[in-house]
């Protein structure tokens, strides 16, 4: 069977394109780094890909708000291609700046369940961390087991680095969150690592640095109502191997004990990418 084809966007200050492409390849994908303008000028078409990844970085320097200007490029120049991609039921992931881009295009959290495909209307935002600082630090994440998100299946809790200055997820009102919560679209949250696994998720704001940014309801990432479009602020690709976990020199980096690609050194983040590849294969 042909490996699923993954389009990894790059250009204009996207920075994590190399590692994002690499992790999809490690789990059986065939990824290609494609400059945004190649989709705009028609050299490439999203239609030829099975998965779209919008990696982290500082697109356009994050001026005018993180992800904003890249979001506009997608919203105005790639609207039709994106519309079709989502309508075709193909998975999209946005990591860090990519998540910010997807939120600002309106693809995340996206319109309600009843709607027909994306409407490109922004309903949430990611704003400056309460700390006022860009920070690189490790956090603990827990996933909603009932989420329709195809990217997060069978993942309970992982450690992951965050590297952002604008990661506070906000929406105008609590009813917005209630609706997402009901649909289990609040796919991943920051949790206190001292809680029991499976019981970490809470709506009560957690203190810094457990919640690194003051995100409402401790949200680290959300999916759209279909579960195919997923975005998160932390960087699961940055822990594809245990040797990237801070505890590896203490022989206590968590993760699976065996994997085809990395033996006992697979990191906890890789499963997210494997889930999408397996999803694509299962749909054939």
């Amino acid at each position, binding site marked *: 069977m042909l490996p699923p084809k993954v389009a990894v966007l790059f250009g204009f200050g996207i920075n994590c394109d190399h590692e994002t492409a690499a992790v999809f390849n490690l789990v059986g994908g065939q990824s290609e780094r494609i400059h945004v303008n190649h989709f705009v000028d028609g050299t490439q078409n999203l239609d030829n890909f099975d998965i779209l990844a919008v990696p982290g970085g500082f697109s356009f320097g994050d001026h005018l708000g993180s992800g*904003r200007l890249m979001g506009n490029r997608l919203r105005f120049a790639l609207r039709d291609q994106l519309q079709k991609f989502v309508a075709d039921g193909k998975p999209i992931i946005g990591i860090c700046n990519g998540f910010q881009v997807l939120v600002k295009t309106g693809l995340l959290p996206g319109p309600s369940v009843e709607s027909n495909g994306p409407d490109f209307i922004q309903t949430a935002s990611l704003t400056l961390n309460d700390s006022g600082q860009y920070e690189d630090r490790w956090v603990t994440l827990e996933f909603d087991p009932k989420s329709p998100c195809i990217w997060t299946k069978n993942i309970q809790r992982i450690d992951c680095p965050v590297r952002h200055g604008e990661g506070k997820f906000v929406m105008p009102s609590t009813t917005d969150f209630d609706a997402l919560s009901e649909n289990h679209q609040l796919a991943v949250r920051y949790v206190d690592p001292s809680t029991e696994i499976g019981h970490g998720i809470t709506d009560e704001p957690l*203190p810094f640095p457990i919640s690194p940014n003051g995100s409402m309801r401790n949200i680290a990432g959300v999916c759209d109502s279909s579960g195919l479009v997923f975005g998160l602020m932390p960087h699961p690709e940055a822990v594809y191997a245990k040797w990237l976990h801070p505890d590896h020199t203490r022989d206590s980096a968590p993760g699976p004990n065996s994997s085809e690609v990395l033996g006992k050194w697979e990191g906890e983040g890789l499963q997210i990418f494997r889930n999408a590849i397996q999803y694509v294969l299962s749909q054939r």
Partner: protein
Amino acid sequence: MAFSTPLPERVLPMPISRVEVTPKQSDGMRDVRGDVVRRQLMADHGIDVTEVRSINGFLIKSTVESEEISKRVDDLFSDPIIEHATTNNLLLASPEYFQNTPDAAITIGFKPGVTDNPGSAAYDGFKTIFSPKNELEDAAISTYQTYVFYGIPENTSVEWIASTLHNNLIQRALVSDSEACQQSLWPALEYPEKPPQVFSPPQPINLEISDEELLELSDSGLLALNLEEMQTIQAHYRDEKIRATRKSAGIVPHSPTDVELECLAQTWSEHCKHKIFASKIHHIDKETGEDTVIDSIFKTHIMKPTHDMQNEVDWLLSVFHDNSGVIAWDDEWSICMKAETHNSPSALDPYGGAMTGIVGVNRDILGTGLGARPIANTDVFCFGPPNWEGDLPDNLFHPSRVLRGVHAGVRVGGNESGIPTVNGAIVFDDRYIGKPLVYCGTVGIMPRQLADGRQSHIKTPSAGDIVYMVGGRVGYDGIHGATFSSLELTEESPSSAVQIGDPITQKKMLDMVLEARDAGLITCITDNGAGGLSSSIGEMAEYTNGCEIDLAKVPLKQPGLSAWEILVSESQERMTVAVKVSDCDAFEAMANLHEVEATPVATFTSSGMFHVKFGTDTVAYLPIDFLHDGVPQLQLESEWQLPKTEPFLPDLLYLDGDADHSTLLLRMLARPNIASKESWVRQYDHEVIAQTAVKPFVGVERDGPGDAGVIAPLHGNPHGIVISCGIVPRYSDLDAGAMAAASIDEAVRNAVCAGVDVDKIAGLDNFCWPDSIESVKTPDGKFKLAQLVRANRELERVCRAYRLPCVSGKDSMKNDYGAGENKISIPPTLLYSVFGDQPDVRFTATSDFKSAGERVYLVGTSKEELGACELSYMLRDSGETQGIGGQVPLLLNPEKNLSMYRALSTAIQNGLVRTAHDCSEGGLAVAVAEMCIGGRVGAEIDIDGTGKSSVWARLWGESLGRFLVGVQPEQETEFIQWMSGHPITYLGEVTKTPTLIISDGYDKLVETETNVMVDSWQKTLDMTGGVV
């Protein structure tokens, strides 16, 4: 030009539209930018303001009308979920958003012509939305911030607050005080219209003048050339043969043009030619009676040893001549590294200066060979004490402000470029108030062979190749940076020497250049740094022995620049790239795709001439060999005499013999030089690229000190690279030679802690020195030059012993402020950086103790070496003791050390040791304390077996060649065997009880709880003002 837009028709000046945006004040939202200002005022100045709110402003100069803009404000300028916006009004004037009258409002914007990155990004987004037809030629967006203050403490001047929020060299501020606010007189900045530049045609400069006038010309023109150099230029234009060729080329025959003189001044500057390192030095040693001549420190002590080593190993691919040194890493990949300083610009504008420092050294990597990818940054700063309460000379910023600005510049430059900052240091000393040192380093990687078979580390230009300028445009910013950095700072230092980097323009260029490299389109590449096009094209023209440049083709930020300004401007984000004629179309198409400007501005020739035209006129016609090799060698005097220093006598403090080492330890941990820099370092992205296996902070709480950065850059492959550094300027107060040796040893030790392959390491020497040429301004120049001689002799001795080639380096030789009695000279400072091979990052070590029962060993030998130790400075600063003198730590037998380092490193590579920490500032006591902090455990240590020297020396001394390591009990026997033949001493073991106990036999010296140590160590430099 690859990027052509038809010239718009000139229309009448358009109205300028104003958009203002402010965060919403609803539940759970906060004005974070305002909070940051409030916290900084508290942290830096103890001023407690009740509330600060912020407004972002945009001034839009465009044919698009305000009404149109107003309709789309939420699509571009404001985020409707979190912000309010208004068009052509001031938000402050609107009671809907600002109900209460503030105590003050301060608006800060850029001065005309200063790089405004948010403004350029906004205009880019503006074009996406409006696609304006017939747009103005100078259409642009200018940004500003307004801060609105409520509850300012009495006696706090609003003007003073404004001065802390902006740098008037590059920014302007408008202030409304309480009275103005009451009357609703709000600050409203207008669009910063650039004053027109007046083009002056190239002028001949008459050099048939007296020696005094020659010097006067050099001074007034900021040429930074001495009399002999001016006379050499004068003689060149008297040469009849030269006059004849000039005549036939159609340029003024008997005098230089301003273009030529500026070009020579840049190329011959200390910054570009390293004239002191290349000089002939008459060296006298008053101690030994030595009287010798050294013909170039660089050739003798740096180049020769490295070339000798190049003959012995096969992995030294490229040393010295390129933008960075290149070593083979495996069969497919080579790695390279370069470190630079950006001291003078950082003194004038800490933010912009430091940012251009980091993005500039990134370009050195991109300009190495046929182009390498930057994959890791390092940064090392030297500042005045952040809590300095003494006087400050005019025109100098307070050290805390320099720290904040430099840190922000490096943070933005590194983070936005997507390059992790994996290693660094911050050093404090009063004398760095005069000139902060900002070292920025970058590691790069490139495939050893390109698809077309060429070796990537070798440039392959031919005559006829087209030379492109790629990236940013040329502006008035950055004129005279190279010559300016070769002069001491004064109150009149020029603002044009300061620039602000634009990481996104550079990132686009980097993406594009690396694609062009892989497509085989590049024959030669270098960056535009100091000296601008004159240096970049001039240096590359040496390969083919000639070039012809047309300055009229160079795209400008604003019209009107004169020819010489275009040639020497150091405007940022530019590479110079040579491409075969047949590849130009493909190259330009690639530039177009990436929205990068690429303009052919020159052609390589083999004419032997550096030929510069402006349109059809020849404006410079200089022989390549005169340009590059014409500068006369300096003749300098050096004289060494041991500096007289008061000895460090700690015993006098405690005549009853009852020293309180526990308190001393807590005080030492709080010393800025030792204290945790985590709150600063955490703001650097150290993990982008998903390769960082050992991060800057390690341990259970990820807040213990890391010794070296370790990366595994090939995804899925644990093959690693270690990056480390050493810097010990204190020792220069006793002997700059010992300082150099200690710096190198520290860098190597740090790398050993990470399990580096000691047989495959390379180093970079970055010297920052005070002026070392004897003159009226520098009466002690001979001594300072002797310090340089001694440092380089030690560098050679230690590097030869460690078989550590210096593959690249840099020197910055005028780190002084002012003159006469008030002159501040930095302590002679060598930063030594090391990069090397790490066979497998899964087997490395970190400084944190791993578990109770772990056995603790000292590797190496403690000696009676307390001279210039950190403890001596602490007790001198507090007035408890008088001096810092005594025996400075020496590296007596480096060959023996190397063998010990190899044993320890291989023990780590074999998994025998998972805990290792370099023993340096603060000695054994501080090292073991840091290891307890990292592991959040305690330890019981006995230093009785560590030799015969005094308790002070064994506890606090900084003898070189030492490590503390932890070994699991079940591996102890094997470890002892592995290290046999090397000095190791059992010290004790790690305890679960989180208390550090250090004894000397029956005497208990230290007993301190780990959490108390954490507190001391972390508080000093946490200047965030507290989060949330």
